[in-house]
């Protein structure tokens, strides 16, 4: 630990932060233009035939997110460089983290719905990899898989929603979709689109009842929790809601679903936050609370509510990332994150972390003059402006805020300033973390103060984002002091209530734990049961369909084919056309008799040689058909192939045992019925095809151009080698592959011990 104590200001330590800093500076360069109301659009074709392009739009909303992602990314990367230095998979970790950052930037900047979806799924995948970073631990793996399945399922719903949007609005470009007011909300598919998009957003942003993956995701290393699972990725759902607000918002279903899910998640999570005994879990539940609150505030289209949402979004990202990293430092210094063991005394040992965490917690608790205070005032104002039942919702938000106050104190006050002494892991001595691990949290905490003291600075980020969400709205002015009014009184009530909750937190935790122990509804375990059910169903279905017997598979295939064919004919009411027996020439009769006789021989005989002879007869009969009806090329090919089949069969078959070793023929009436039905259906289809006049346009074109343009008199050959040469090329490639595969099967595998 000696190196960690020293101040290592070597350049190497900065290396991980270079890329995010460069992106941050690039993004910040767009600030003046965007603050002036402009947008920047960059576009490249990707799959033009499907209307998919790689287009990016920098407007107020995406720029705010991009700055948060790259800025906090820089802090987290710098931190991780130290936190995981010397880890055997350090490079892998940084790779994942960088990939995540780029995907997340793509998500918020994308202007094409399909591109957005791809980036959305990339964040899911990188999140999976990062949660499962400690892959040797079964709990990590389970959490990673759970997060992947929950958010991945939501992602699929989102894709379906996007495709519906694309077909309704006629474009996958977000800017074009959102430029048509009412195109989605007035469409009959609106409800379906809304449900699908909300399914994606709610799973990503861990709204109740699919919230459980987020606390489990805390199995990831702390910088990941700080970055993905509080500051950025989980805000992806919130971003989507904000982004789609102009297109999908402003309706009753939108308002009620966001209000109900958001409010419930917020209150539910803030109560559970106090129940947790692990500092990271406390923070995870307060993150859930924040996500619920953000969802709640995006429900309406009222200026002040949207301003509150955007402000709170920034506030939360700043303080929550800082607090997570501070908890990482505590963990680093003491070896534990247990609330009951961290009862005080760390302030002296880790001064910078103490101050940073303290500042962040004050912002989280909503004290003036922090940005958190502005955010909280705006929340109260927004709720008062929106809610039709203000008292109920205000009470909910008040309770949530007070609980958050208490949680902030539990995380950032008690471990440092409490009266007790920490119970350390054996061998740990409390110490300040090395500089890359405190400089970032300190910077984030200070930003909370700076923005609070100079709200105009924060407004540069907030206002354009509000305009992006509410094109017609005017951002509410950010101010520290609005005079004595209802929100201020509510703030004071929050502090008093929060203080009381903090003082009672140990008893509350015990009480909540007791309730939880008796509570039969458990989402995490419920999820396991759902997975078990899916597995059991898959097993049952596999046993049903995949019997492992070739004949069963074939029967199923043929029966399905028959059902599809017969079903279509029945459903359309298509009858089989009557056939008048035509006058046939003698040679035609001869051919028919030949083929029928050969077929009968193959089916009925018990001798291999007779069967081969029967096959030969059928083959020659078919070749004769080709000869009679003007297809010499085909006939020659057929005859030659027939010869070779006989050679192959003779070589191989005669070395295999007899057809019926037990010496008796087994009659299979069920198979016979199926076979006759399929044969009959084939005849019916062909007769129906023959009813329709033949479209000879293509043939005529080939006939007319074969000589003048392709210099060939044999039209069949010209089609093969000139007009459709690419097809033929594919076909000879298939022949080659089949021959080589068979060659390998014959020659290649020589097992040892085979006699």
């Amino acid at each position: 630990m000696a190196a960690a104590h020293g101040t290592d200001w070597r350049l190497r330590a900065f290396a991980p932060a270079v890329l995010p800093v460069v992106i941050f500076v690039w993004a910040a360069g767009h600030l003046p233009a965007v603050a002036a109301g402009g947008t920047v659009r960059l576009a490249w074709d990707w799959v033009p035939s499907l209307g998919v392009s790689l287009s990016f739009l920098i407007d107020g909303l995406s720029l705010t997110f991009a700055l948060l992602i790259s800025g906090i990314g820089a802090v987290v990367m710098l931190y991780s460089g130290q936190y995981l230095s010397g880890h055997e998979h350090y490079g892998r970790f940084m790779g994942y983290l960088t990939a995540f950052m780029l995907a997340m930037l793509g998500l918020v900047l994308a202007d094409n719905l399909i591109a957005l979806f791809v980036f959305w799924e990339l964040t899911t995948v990188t999140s999976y990899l990062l949660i499962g970073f400690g892959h040797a631990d079964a709990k990590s793996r389970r959490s990673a898989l759970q997060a992947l399945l929950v958010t991945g399922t939501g992602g699929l719903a989102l894709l379906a929603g996007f495709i519906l949007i694309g077909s309704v609005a006629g474009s996958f470009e977000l800017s074009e979709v959102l430029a048509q007011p009412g195109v989605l909300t007035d469409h009959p598919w609106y409800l379906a689109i809304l449900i699908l998009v909300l399914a994606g957003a709610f799973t990503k942003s861990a709204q109740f009842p699919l919230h459980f993956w987020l606390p489990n995701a805390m199995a990831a290393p702390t910088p990941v929790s700080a970055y993905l699972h509080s500051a950025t990725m989980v805000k992806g759902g919130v971003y989507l809601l904000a982004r789609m607000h102009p297109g999908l918002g402003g309706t009753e279903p939108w308002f009620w679903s966001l209000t109900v899910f958001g409010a419930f998640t917020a209150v539910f999570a803030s109560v559970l936050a106090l129940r947790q005994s692990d500092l990271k879990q406390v923070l995870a539940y307060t993150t859930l609370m924040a996500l619920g609150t953000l969802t709640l505030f995006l429900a309406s289209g009222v200026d002040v509510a949207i301003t509150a949402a955007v402000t709170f979004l920034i506030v939360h990202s700043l303080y929550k990332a800082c607090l997570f990293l501070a908890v990482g430092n505590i963990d680093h210094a003491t070896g534990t994150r247990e609330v009951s063991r961290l009862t005080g005394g760390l302030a002296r040992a880790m001064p910078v972390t103490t101050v940073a965490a303290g500042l962040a917690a004050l912002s989280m608790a909503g004290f003036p003059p922090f940005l958190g205070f502005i955010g909280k005032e705006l929340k109260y104002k927004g709720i008062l402006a929106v809610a039709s039942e203000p008292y109920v919702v205000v009470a909910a938000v008040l309770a949530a805020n007070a609980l958050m106050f208490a949680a902030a104190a539990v995380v950032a006050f008690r471990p440092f300033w409490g009266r007790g002494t920490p119970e350390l892991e054996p061998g740990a001595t409390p110490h300040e973390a090395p500089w890359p691990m405190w400089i970032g949290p300190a910077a984030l905490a200070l930003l909370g103060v700076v923005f609070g003291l100079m709200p105009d600075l924060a407004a540069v980020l907030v206002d354009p984002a509000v305009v992006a969400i509410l094109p017609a709205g005017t951002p509410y002015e950010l101010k520290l002091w609005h005079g004595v009014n209802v929100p201020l009184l509510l703030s004071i009530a929050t502090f008093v209530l929060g203080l009381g909750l903090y003082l009672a937190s140990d008893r509350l935790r015990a009480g909540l734990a007791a309730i939880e122990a008796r509570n039969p509804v458990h989402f995490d375990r419920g999820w396991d049961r759902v997975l078990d059910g899916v597995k059991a169903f898959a097993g049952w279905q596999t046993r049903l369909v995949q019997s492992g017997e070739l004949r069963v598979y074939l029967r199923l295939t043929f029966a399905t084919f028959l059902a599809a064919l017969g079903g279509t004919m029945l459903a359309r009411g298509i009858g089989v056309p009557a056939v008048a027996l035509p006058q046939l020439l003698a040679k035609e009769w001869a051919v028919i008799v030949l083929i029928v006789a050969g077929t009968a021989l193959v089916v009925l005989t018990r001798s291999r040689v007779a069967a081969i002879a029967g096959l030969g007869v059928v083959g020659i009969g078919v070749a004769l058909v080709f000869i009679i009806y003007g297809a010499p090329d085909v006939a020659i090919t057929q005859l030659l192939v027939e010869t070779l089949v006989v050679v192959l069969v003779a070589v191989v078959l005669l070395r295999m045992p007899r057809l019926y070793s037990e010496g008796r023929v087994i009659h299979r009436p069920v198979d016979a019925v199926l076979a006759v039905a399929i044969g009959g259906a084939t005849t019916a289809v062909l007769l129906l095809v023959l009813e329709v006049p033949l479209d000879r346009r293509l043939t005529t074109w080939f006939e007319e151009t074969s000589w003048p343009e392709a210099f060939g008199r044999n039209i069949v050959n010209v089609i093969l080698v000139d007009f459709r040469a690419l097809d033929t090329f594919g076909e000879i490639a298939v022949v080659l592959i089949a021959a080589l595969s068979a060659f390998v099967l014959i020659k290649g595998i020589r097992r040892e011990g085979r006699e």
Partner: protein
Amino acid sequence: MNSVILMAGSRILVALLLVFSVFMLLRGHNEPGGGFIGGLIGAVGFVIYAIACGTSSAREALRVPPETVAAAGLGVALLGGVWAAVDGDAFFTGQWLFLGATEDSKGLPLSSVLVFDVGVYLVVFGSILSLVFALEEEV
């Protein structure tokens, strides 16, 4: 199979069939024939030879492993397609050279289409022989 007549006859037969197969290949653009048929005839010739004189002498007579012939054929066919691309046309557009063309005669027509058909011939020929030879040897 130790039939002297068959052995002696097959030598002549394989030569005839090979010449015939090339004839079928070359005339294929204007009369029934072409790469598929030519390749099949050539393969049948060698199969007869292999049955009569044994696979090892058939392999000797062929000199090149049939798998190589087949793979090379695919390459030749591809060449017939790429020719057009080199000339600036779409892939697999027929390209024609009329050697010694005069006012009333087209001369000797050489084309990318013929190159392609030769590729088809070689693939079919090589594929079938590699299969048959391997089966004869191992089964």
